[in-house]
């Protein structure tokens, strides 16, 4: 694979073959910052599950204690009292059929969609549009709920959704490189703890094969899986 000069230079900053502790890896990431923008810190996982099996499909949400560092634009499909609740909780867009028509017309100025169950009949018709973009509300992801106010607040405050790909890997943003080392570590451990808790009971063999920490534009720093999960469980 072609790698640019900048990337090759960054690869020399650390030992690519070594497995690091979470704190060591964060220190390295700080040295890897090489762009003009505030890069996102990302955790990459390769899991030993079979995503085709319904009970091994890892998906859920987790609240990052230090937030994501990103403003999330939340859309809520709700009507009546629930719509008012959503607006008061800080949702960026709230509506029912009017919003549905707008989306059908190609409008996508939001990062997350939440729906009350009583809206799912209408929202379901947007499956082909929202589903392909990964924006379809889902009960397991906490985005199909009657408690819209709570959901809006949590997602705005840094709740993120994680979901395994069909190749059994996962890439999740856990903050910005401008965060302090402690905040990044807190977020990583919160995410890992959620992943460890989501381990399917039916799984035999290794659960997490590899774990990597990287920036938007940097090489990945490999983490020591056993040490990192042990710290996450304690935390």
């Amino acid at each position, binding site marked *: 694979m072609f790698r640019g000069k900048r990337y090759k230079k960054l690869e020399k900053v650390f030992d690519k073959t070594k497995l690091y502790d979470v704190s060591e890896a964060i220190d390295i990431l700080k040295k890897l910052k090489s762009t003009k923008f505030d890069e996102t810190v990302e955790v990459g996982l390769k899991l030993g599950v079979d995503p085709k099996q319904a009970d091994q499909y890892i998906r859920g949400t987790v609240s990052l204690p230090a937030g994501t560092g990103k403003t999330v634009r939340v859309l809520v499909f709700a009507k009546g009292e629930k719509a008012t609740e959503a607006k008061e909780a800080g949702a960026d867009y709230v509506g029912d059929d009017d919003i549905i028509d707008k989306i059908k017309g190609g409008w996508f100025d939001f990062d997350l969609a939440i729906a009350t169950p009583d809206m799912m009949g209408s929202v379901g018709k947007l499956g082909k549009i929202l589903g392909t973009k990964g924006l379809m509300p889902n*009960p397991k992801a906490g985005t199909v709920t009657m408690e819209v106010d709570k959901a809006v607040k949590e997602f705005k405050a840094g709740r993120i959704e994680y979901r395994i790909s069909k190749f059994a890997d996962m890439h999740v943003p856990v903050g910005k490189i401008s965060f302090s080392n402690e905040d990044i570590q807190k977020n990583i451990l919160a995410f890992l703890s959620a992943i460890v808790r989501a381990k399917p009971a039916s799984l035999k063999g290794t659960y997490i094969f590899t774990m990597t920490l990287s920036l938007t534009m940097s090489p990945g720093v490999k983490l020591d899986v056993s040490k990192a999960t042990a710290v996450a469980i304690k935390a």
Partner: protein
Amino acid sequence: MGQIQVQNITKYFGVKAVLDGISFTLGGNDRLALVGANGTGKSTLIKIIMDQMEPDDGKVFKEPDKVIGYFAQDRSLDVSDVILFDQVRSAFKNIYETGRQLEEISLEVEKDPHNPQLLAKFEKLQHQYEALGGYDIDHRIERILSGLGFSKEDWKRPVVSLSGGERSRLQLATILATEPDTLVLDEPTNHLDLEATIWLEGFLQEFKGSVLIVSHDRYLLDKVCNHTVILIDGKAFDFTGNFTQARAQYDLEREHSLEKLQEQQEFIERANRFIKRFKGYGTEVAAKRARSMERRLERVVQVEALPQEKKVQLNLESSGRTGEIVFRTKSLSKSFGDRELFGGLNLEMKRGQKIALMGPNGCGKTTFLKTVIGEEEPSSGEVWLGYNVSMAYLEQELGSFNPEATVIEEIMNNSDLKPQEARDHLATFLFVGDDVSKLCKALSGGEISRLILAKLALIDANFIIFDEPTNHLDINARASLEDTIKNYSGSVLLVSHDRYFINNIGATIWAFDGNNIVDTRGSLEEYLQRKPEKQTDKGDQKTQQKQKKKDQGPSKNQIKSMQDRLKNFEDEISMLESRKSDIEQSMSNPDFYSRGEQTKLDLDEYDKIKIQLAETENAWAELSEELSAISPQ
């Protein structure tokens, strides 16, 4: 373990073992070519692999959870008024059914939003739909259809309106949309046009998975395959490499086996002579030696020579000589409804010419042939046939025989041959023994094609028209047909997408260009070189982008780098000039020439600097000119 393991497969048809202990493995990245003459059981083996037929012995192991995409040879489509897009969709009934259920349950959730069981059911179904790729399915179908050359307008065409090649492409699209890990393709290029075949070659090379392919297209096999299994007389011969490499390896091994067989036969003869001679001596010692030799003979394991494939012997005689012009079209045109297939054609075919008609599927090649032979009425214009032309036409649809007749009856009904003459004639087309008593409807694709060739060889003609004659012919039969056409003194007009075949018979190309047919007056190679390539695939787009960038001129970074180089040249020139002037100054000193070795070194350096200076100044001038051309400021 490979993705497919074929172990010791044996299959009998009657008392004949069509497959006799076949074993091979299809690995993760294998591109395996399964080749052999027609009737050697390739399609039977594929059916066994695909669980459509039970073997008499042996087993096929397949890796669990791997999706196998099967492209059958007998590709019958339900050609009702279903449109093309819906035809592909029909392969995903389970996904669309899950989608329908999801919609239903969404409505139930809407009515009863506080029911946790209902919500859990909804969540499970949504996950199932997502895992099946339900949200993405229409996009996936669109991508594949576009990749296979179907335009957006085509998606709404009824399947019934598609040509043979287009139907093949449609079926390939249906298989590819299932995202298979392994592809099993049985003669995939039959009915595919040249562009689609070239596309398929590229696709198979890029395909991330294993491929098992049965084909007689030598170009395709050589370009795509890295593993070849040759089936001869029910046995499998497994080789690494593409078809040509495997064929060469097989021929070499066969030669060795013949040599070994000969050596063994010579030894047996020698041994028998020895035994006879020593037994004749009548002494006990001699008898002992004869017995010892007998025992040695008993231990000899009979060497078997590798079998040789049988070849079709086709002999075409031109009956009589035509005039200089075989046929001429005058403003010929043909339309079906509003669609004009060709119009205003003024073409001329001369005696002895071999012409291949090229064009994409559905453009009207077969209609043109049928208009020439008079089976189709032209919409306007006319076809003028030359003096003494007698035509024979081998049609694309292989149905011009009585399915209830036996092979020998079919030949005798179409000729004046007596039974024994008919048998002799059929033997040259590899119909021997009981083969001649087979019903036409029970023949394999290859046998039907050979039967039609056998009928064709009986026809007295000096102008033969073939419509895709190599479809269903095996590689040896294709080679025989090539030789026959090459040596045929009459004229030949044909439609074929087999590049080896067209090249080998040295045909001139008539190419469809919209609704016109152009006489390129050149060979296939020349035609392909001249033909402007469609810029459709990613590679072409990349090349286009690169060219566009090139056309736009150098980027800011490139200009900056040129400026830096110019600056470096200037620094170097100034440094060299300074050193040159130093040496010149010292040269003006009278003592300069009395310093012995140092004088020599300085003079050498002076010469070198002069050369270096000239070179650097030249380079600077060139770069400076280049830079001022692109960045005048």
